[in-house]
């Protein structure tokens, strides 16, 4: 009998510690599936952030490094420069990547560093108790914006995918979501492409994944998925913002919008 739900080899099988309904786990799983499908597990080194996914090194079944808050792209750069024939990815939240680590990701992209970054945008700092993140929506209540994010005093959400799509070295930039089965399938396609970009040595690749934080949003898992679709997707449009020029030329890569 065929197994319908099989654990990817690129996951250790250790139970996730994430809150019920948190989509961190889904993203872990699809990254692992991509690693399996590409057959790169034994060549892969992952770099985890500081944030709720700080224990990602317990889950991914490959060599892993725990970085300081925001510095994963710099750490990944160090690894990749020493081991250019290995596959190196970072997994980072929006506090990690878009607040404290903005410089590291922008410059890894600017150098065209041949690494893959998976960026979890859940519009809050999860781990530290639901504070405002650079991606928090205007009006969204967080523990540090109790009356809702005020544009006048705290600005408006940073659109990381759009920002990085202006950087020449960032050759693959996409934003995806995981709020329903169809979006999960598209997310997986994008993440796989982001690894393929690295395998082809083309440059920096990043996939921004809109993700839920039911705990800090104060919603049930299902409500959180709905909230994401209704409130985040309009502000953070989904799609591929950049694809390698090479892919258009020789017709590789599906090019399908995701």
């Amino acid at each position, binding site marked *: 009998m065929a197994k319908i739900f099989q654990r990817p080899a690129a996951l250790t099988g250790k139970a996730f510690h994430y809150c019920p309904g948190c989509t961190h786990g889904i993203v872990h799983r699809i990254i692992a599936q991509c690693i399996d499908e590409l057959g790169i597990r*034994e060549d892969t080194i992952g770099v985890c952030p500081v944030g709720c996914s700080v224990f990602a090194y317990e889950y991914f079944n490959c060599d*892993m490094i725990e970085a300081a808050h925001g510095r994963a792209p*710099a750490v990944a750069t*160090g690894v990749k420069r*020493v081991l250019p024939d290995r596959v190196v990815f970072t997994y980072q939240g929006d506090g990690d990547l878009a607040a404290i680590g903005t410089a590291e990701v922008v*410059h890894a992209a600017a150098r065209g560093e041949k690494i893959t970054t998976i960026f979890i945008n859940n519009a809050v700092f999860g781990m530290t108790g639901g504070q405002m993140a650079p991606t928090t929506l205007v009006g969204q209540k967080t523990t540090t914006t109790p009356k809702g994010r005020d544009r006048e005093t705290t600005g408006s959400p940073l659109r990381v995918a759009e920002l990085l799509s202006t950087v020449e070295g960032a050759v693959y930039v996409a934003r995806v979501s995981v709020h329903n089965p169809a979006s999960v399938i598209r997310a997986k396609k994008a993440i796989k492409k982001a690894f393929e970009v690295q395998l082809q040595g083309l440059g920096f690749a990043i996939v921004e994944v809109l993700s839920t934080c039911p705990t800090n949003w104060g919603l049930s898992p299902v409500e959180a998925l709905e909230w994401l679709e209704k409130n985040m997707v309009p502000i953070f449009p989904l799609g591929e913002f950049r694809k390698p020029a090479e892919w258009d030329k020789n017709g590789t890569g599906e090019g399908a919008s995701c």
Partner: protein
Amino acid sequence: MARVLMKGNEAFGEGAIRAGCRYFFGYPITPQSELPHFLAKRLPEIGGVYLQAESEVSAINMVYGAAAAGARVMTSSSSPGISLMQEGISYIVGAQLPCVIINVMRGGPGLGNIAPAQGDYFQATKGGGHGDYKLIVLAPASVQEIITHMQLAFDLADKYRNPVMVVGDGILGQMMEPVDLEGTGGEMAEPSKPWATTGMRGRKERNIVNSLCIVPEENEKNNLQLAAKYGEIQRSEQRWEEYGLDDAEWVLVAFGTVARVAKGVVDKARKEGIAAGLIRPITLWPFPEKAFNKVIDQVKGFLTVEMSLGQMVEDVRLCVQGRQPVRFLGRPGGMVPSVREVYEELKKMAGVKTCG
């Protein structure tokens, strides 16, 4: 004899290459610039990587990654940049990774200036970043010694899986002296690094490089393991130079550039009948307390000279433990004490009347 005239800053680079280092990550700052300039040219020629990071914060984290991947790797900066690196250094210690960090110290605090100083002694020897840890700290005092210290730095870093900091200042960095490169570096075997995160490639167990240790009981064990390592380093790795110490009554204590000035003072004092000597700590950590215990009963007092308001002098006092007087002369902020002013201070201490 293959002697060449070389700048201190270049010698850091030459010494690193000879010690097998092929990776450099850094961010520009004076007065260490000749070092990155040198390596930017040399490393690509020999298949290495020179990478200019967007900040010192980033540079030290690149070092973390390269060290995790098993490479001999270094960075270099000067005081303000080293301050920015402290978080990363603490992580490197926590993850027990080897690397070499150079601090060509300058006058502080704040932006200060680019003149020679030793005001980062506390930062280098007492931890520097957060948490309970030590760096091994080497303080070369000549261009030749820079070359040998770079080899030593990489060897100690690998041996103890701990960062090693090599400190100098703008004088040492800009100074040219002859160096004999014969017998340095070459075909040394780097230790294997089975713990490195290089991709599993047939290895059964995953390797994980990490400094997170969430359970206090376990983290205490980690800290005690570090403490055991530091105890071993204190027992085995104290290094110092003695100059005129055998029959010395008055002992100068100084490191790096200031130790060169102090040697000049010893020469002058000896000519004028004062039995002076010098203890020059080579390892600032572990501090060479053995050198002090050796002479404590024979001497009448110590004069510590630093380019700071008095930092190493605290370690000198800890070693001497009140058994002899310890005096201090310091020039902070980028000033260099002259032979003459140190000599005058020594005479005062020795109770010799200054004439005129």
